[in-house]
């Protein structure tokens, strides 16, 4: 019970096709990794308000620099989707998945020389629920009712309710391990147990890191002598920096310039489909979206493939109106795909007793790049079924506070979550603050609670499969597409056979996993 095996993206044939098309070296594993060189990264998603406080991390630069680079988590999701221990060596659950015992790695030290142990784990977790702390990982830690130090290198967590995914949650990039008693200092200076220690850090500008002399991942990861991460938020500047060889890898490749970059023999594009998805949530307690037939008519009135082709320029996959992505463990690949079918849309309009329907769809590019265009495509595709969508272009400023969760139908994005339960309980559990479809479904809720405490993998697969089916058939959100993570690197770099698909840049662990040829 110590390790879950996940079906990673790489195992699906579709992904193999993508990889072949992007010229990924299949023989990368043939040349063994070797130490040396300074990795220079050009990263979008940096802000002048960045810090080493894991509770505030939400954008690419800090996610990449913190977990797996300067700091470590208790567990880690490998590139192939397998969950392994990072600072934890092994773990055990009680039969009800309520009590979890973690055995910590011995002989690990922080960059300032302090030895890592049970106290550090407890304090690092407690900071997420401290009075006045605004941590994105608060719900995860708040679910722990008791943390007990069983020994210098053993911690026992008692959860308020059973959660089979608990070790997965401990790999969250917010939950970093800081040295107990000096967390303030560690946040100010960036003192972790990671492969690289901080030389200098200028928020929103640059981070310079050096490899520590000896590390418990020696021989397995951390091949660079140093890392120099430059914040380049402008996409043309980032592409230029890679093309002229000033950096070795960049994230968030601009789809428009991607063909030009492919033409450069010194540059490789790497692309994976993860859980990031774009949505059009409707408030299911508001007319006309409270009528399940209206929702079904809207589901059949959208041309998903057209959106993937035109909005993502092919860099994505069609969605099936549920938030579980190909990077999730129990992704229901066999679920019937919702197709663009105007006859069915008309049929459900009739079922709803309507001949025509006028609805407003609020969109802004704050939701996702191309959201307004996507809404207009939706408008055009649904017209044939008598559905008149009025696209309302909302200001990007204040979109999340004034439009999302407030307007009956709008555009939205989700980066997805590593586990099904986490995703569902963030946005689709009855009564949670981010339930952006006001989704209330008795059967769904019952399945959610039973799945959480279930340790049997087959049973969980059927539970989460049914939940995805319910959402796909009657749910309140349209998920037209999953957007790929598209990054690029110099051909001087090499990597293992798999590329992680939880986040950009090999699940944001490029500094740990890649090396110079």
């Amino acid at each position, binding site marked *: 019970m110590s390790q879950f095996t996940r079906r990673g993206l790489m195992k699906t044939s579709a992904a193999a096709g993508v990889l072949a098309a992007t010229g990924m070296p299949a023989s990368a594993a043939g040349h063994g990794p070797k130490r040396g060189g300074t990795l220079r990264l050009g990263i979008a998603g940096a802000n*002048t308000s960045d810090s080493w406080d894991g509770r505030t991390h939400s954008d690419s630069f800090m996610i990449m620099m913190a977990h797996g680079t300067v700091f470590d988590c208790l567990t880690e999701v490998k590139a192939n989707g397998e969950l392994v221990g990072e600072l934890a060596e092994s773990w055990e659950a009680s039969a009800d998945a309520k009590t979890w015992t973690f055995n910590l790695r011995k002989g690990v030290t922080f960059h300032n020389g302090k030895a890592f142990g049970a106290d550090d784990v407890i304090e690092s977790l407690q900071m997420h629920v401290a009075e006045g702390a*605004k941590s994105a990982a608060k719900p995860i830690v708040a679910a722990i009712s008791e943390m007990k130090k069983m020994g210098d290198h053993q911690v026992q967590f008692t959860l308020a309710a059973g959660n089979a995914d608990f070790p997965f949650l401990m790999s969250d990039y917010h939950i970093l391990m800081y040295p107990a008693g000096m967390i303030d200092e560690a946040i100010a200076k960036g003192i972790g147990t990671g492969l690289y220690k901080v030389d200098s850090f200028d928020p929103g500008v640059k981070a310079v890191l050096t490899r520590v002399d000896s590390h418990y991942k020696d021989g397995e990861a951390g091949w660079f002598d140093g890392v120099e991460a430059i914040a380049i938020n402008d996409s*043309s500047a980032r592409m230029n920096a890679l093309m002229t060889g000033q950096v070795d890898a960049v994230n968030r490749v601009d789809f428009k310039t991607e063909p030009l970059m492919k033409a450069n023999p010194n540059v490789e594009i790497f692309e994976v489909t993860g859980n990031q998805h774009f949505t059009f949530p409707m408030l299911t307690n508001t007319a006309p979206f409270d009528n399940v037939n209206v929702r079904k008519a809207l589901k059949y009135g959208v041309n998903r493939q057209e959106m993937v082709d035109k909005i993502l320029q092919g860099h994505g996959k069609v969605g099936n109106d549920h938030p579980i992505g190909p990077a999730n463990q129990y992704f229901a690949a066999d679920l019937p795909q919702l197709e663009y079918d105007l006859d069915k849309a008309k049929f459900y309009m009739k079922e709803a007793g309507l001949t025509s329907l006028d609805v407003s769809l609020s969109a802004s590019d704050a939701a996702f790049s191309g959201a307004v265009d996507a809404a207009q495509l939706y408008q055009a595709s649904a017209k044939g079924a008598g559905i008149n969508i009025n696209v309302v272009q909302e200001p990007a400023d204040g979109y999340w506070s004034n439009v999302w969760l407030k307007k009956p139908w709008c555009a939205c994005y989700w980066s997805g979550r590593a586990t099904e339960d986490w995703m569902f309980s963030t946005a689709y559990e009855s009564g949670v603050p981010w339930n952006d479809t006001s989704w209330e479904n008795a059967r769904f809720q019952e399945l959610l609670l039973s799945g959480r405490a279930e340790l049997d993998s087959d049973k969980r697969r059927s539970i989460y499969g049914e939940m995805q089916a319910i959402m796909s058939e009657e749910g309140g959100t349209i998920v037209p597409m999953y957007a790929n993570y598209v990054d690029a690197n110099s051909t001087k770099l090499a990597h293992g056979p798999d590329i992680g698909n939880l986040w950009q840049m090999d699940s944001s662990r490029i500094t740990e996993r890649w090396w110079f040829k």
Partner: protein
Amino acid sequence: MGSVGKIILQRLALGALTLVIVSFVIFAAVNALPGDFAAAILGQGATEEAKTAIRADIGLDRPFFERYFTWLGSILTGDLGVSYAQMMFATNLGGDQLISITDQIGPRFFNTMFLAGLTAVIAVPLSLTIGVLAALYRGSVFDRVANVTTLSSISAPEFFLAYVLILFLAVINPLFPVIALPEDGMSLIERARITMLPALTLTLVVTAHMMRMTRAAILNLLASPYIEMARLKGVSPMRVIVVHALPNALAPIINVIALNLAYLITGVVVVEVVFVYPGIGQLFVDAVKNRDIPMVQVCCLIFAAAYILLNLTADVMSILSNPRLRHPK
């Protein structure tokens, strides 16, 4: 010279008043924008509870005028304060390892001034020279080429000029780096080299204005009787322009130079973004995006002060260059 001193003092007092008014207008404008710091920093992840907590922490829940006058009071005592973003970390930390706005802006201010300075060193002599030569050879091929080139460069968007320069000076001939990221301890020459592309881009932007004003001001004077006199007594055309016309044309030229220098300090966000140059502009845009009022205010004060001081300098220099203004009747 007593009158000049008096003018300087008067103008400084007026400038200080202008700064106060600017700060109030900016404060009101940022407050009028939809969303506040709490909503902006939390983004999609904002819950009502978290927003209320942040507002209480940084004092956003207090009345508008109270916040403004508290801020004004601390500015007047020389304390630039702490940005909201830093304050939020402070409550997260429970500690007081705060980075003040002075610490945050300091190095960026230096970078901005360095870029503006380097650009000025290239652009001012260049545009004066071209302006004088264009006036001298009015209507010639040189005059036309200079006019068309500088007008095209001022008409093109800055990012486009930047990409053209990148293409020719970084991609095809790798002379300069495309990322202008200065480091501590760089020598002046190395620093100038990595800052060269943004400086050249800005040179292209500001040259036209200064060069054309030089040309126009000189040509304007060439019709004056005293110039005709100089010509009649056989002074060479170059000498007519440089010795007789230019000193009298200085006042408008200095004013245009001052305006352009102020622009170099305040208006170069696009160039900073394209070349990843860590100047104040980027910080300012981030701060507006986050509704980080203390930071926005300080940036605006710097920008406004740059305009006021440069205009003042221009006026004083105009007066000094014109003896008639020095002795008002």
